């Protein structure tokens, strides 16, 4: 580089007002003056679209977490409980079988709790299908024993099944395996679907970034050209675009997060109000880890947006300029 200092030559300043460097505050040293204009990267429309994407992404991630939490609790409850049913030709036979089964259960290690349902309680379970008092009047209702078992015993119920069959020939053991498997499958399907939605939303965010970055470059063709001619590298220009998209993305993503939290809060209020009436509905609550996951979604959205824009710009510059 030469040492030519233009100010050694006579200037144009005679008679003109001398000026000081523009006043810039303390924080300006940390602020980056954008070399690409605001409107160049899509501006407000892009922010709005990213807000919608972020909203959907947070909701889909919340669905994954809620399904995971609920399915875990449901399957855990199902796995810890078994039901022993004692049938017989007469009430006396059923009562004898039930007391023999209770004796076996009390003597079996791993049985944490065994509760024999009364005839009235068992009949109440049939009321929705047979009507009030009809079950007791016309049927010999089997005895039902609800049993809570340890995980070790739950893994191997064959011995208990055999001992029950030997002590009470009318006794059968239901380990709820069918329900458990169906519930687990349904939960996994729900989670997979929600995750697929999340991935699709992220994919859409990528596609939007590519489109917006290309449109921004085309709209700012002259500016990009000048930047090149004064010595800017492709990486410098891509960094400018990336920074711009990150800021737009962050703005949009945080808006989407706030909207999603509001929607989740409303849904939680409605759902939790229903839990009191029907305990089968999932309890809607979120812990610290869940919040962390949800907060990571907008961050991921704006990172995806910014990195995609950078890669698009680099590729486009190498092809077009």
């Amino acid at each position, binding site marked *: *580089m*030469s*040492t*030519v*200092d*233009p*100010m*050694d*030559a*006579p*200037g*144009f*300043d*005679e*008679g*003109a*007002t*001398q*000026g*000081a*460097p*523009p006043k810039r505050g303390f924080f300006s*040293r940390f602020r980056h*003056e954008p*070399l690409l*204009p*605001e409107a160049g990267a899509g501006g407000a429309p892009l922010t709005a679209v990213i807000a919608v994407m972020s909203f959907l992404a947070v909701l889909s991630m919340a669905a994954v977490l809620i399904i995971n939490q609920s399915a875990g609790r449901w399957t855990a409850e199902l796995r810890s409980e078994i039901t022993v049913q004692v049938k017989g030709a007469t009430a006396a036979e059923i009562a004898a079988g039930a007391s023999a089964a209770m004796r076996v259960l009390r003597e079996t290690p791993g049985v944490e709790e065994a509760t024999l349902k009364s005839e009235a309680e068992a009949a109440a379970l049939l009321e929705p299908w047979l009507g009030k008092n009809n079950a007791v009047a016309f049927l010999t209702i089997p005895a039902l024993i609800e049993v809570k078992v340890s995980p070790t015993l739950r893994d191997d119920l064959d011995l208990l099944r055999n001992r029950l069959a030997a002590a009470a020939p009318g006794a059968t053991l239901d380990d709820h395996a069918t329900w458990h498997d169906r519930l687990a499958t349904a939960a996994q399907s729900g989670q997979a679907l929600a995750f697929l939605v999340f991935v699709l939303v992220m994919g859409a965010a990528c596609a939007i970034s590519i489109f917006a970055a290309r449109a921004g470059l085309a709209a700012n063709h*002259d*500016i990009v*050209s*000048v*930047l*090149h*001619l*004064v*010595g*800017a*590298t*492709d990486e*410098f220009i891509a960094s400018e675009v990336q920074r711009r998209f990150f800021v737009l993305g962050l703005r949009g993503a945080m808006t989407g997060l706030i909207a999603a939290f509001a929607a989740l809060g409303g849904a939680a209020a409605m759902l939790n109000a229903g839990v009191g009436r029907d305990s089968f509905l999932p309890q809607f609550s979120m812990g610290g880890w869940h919040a962390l996951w949800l907060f990571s979604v907008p961050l991921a959205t704006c990172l995806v947006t910014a990195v995609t824009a950078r890669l698009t710009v680099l590729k486009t510059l*190498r092809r077009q300029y």
Partner: protein
Amino acid sequence: MTVKTQIFRFEDAGLAYGDAAETLSDVNIDLGEGEFRFLTGPSGAGKTSLLKMIYLAMRPTRGKFFLFGEDAANAPREALPPLRRRIGVVFQEFRLLDHLTAFDNVALPMKVAGVNLNQYREDVSELLNWVGLGHRMDAKPATLSGGEQQRVALARALVSKPDLILADEPTGNVDPAMSERIMKLFVELNKLGAAVIVATHDLHLVQSLGKPVLRIADGRVSRAPGAGGGGGR
């Protein structure tokens, strides 16, 4: 005897836009350190095209082009920005960035070179004072007159203290008095060591300064008759 460093050299270079016939053909010129050339020719003759090749906006479609000792015709993209930073260009249409202030426009070459604001802040301010725009540092180009925009463009071209200064019709938008001052400035900068090429069709100015002249006609570059020390071969 002092051997001058070569700034650039074209060897049998040609430039064509797409599939069209060559705009410039058989270009064989060179420029040494500290040399000055006027570039003249009728409108559309190819003055701007030749300058574009020199400041690496385009590369020759045939032949060789060496810039600051590098094979610029075949250099990879990554090698071009450092070469461009050694050239200061005053574009015919200024090409200022409308959304930036005069200060930020002048500072642009420093920013893209990664220089810290604290290092160039005073230089840019002094340069704007030097071109008589110290009071318009925060003005956007749209609020500046044509002559003021010209001077901002001039300051931007000079801020990085380039080895080569290219000016494309730098007097096209200013009055005769300012034209003369700008031309004298280029001569002074040349005396200070910078190589200079000024494209102009103002023959009166060319003759008044008595500097070597390259003439473009029919897509061919030649040394103008009677001009001393030209680089055309």
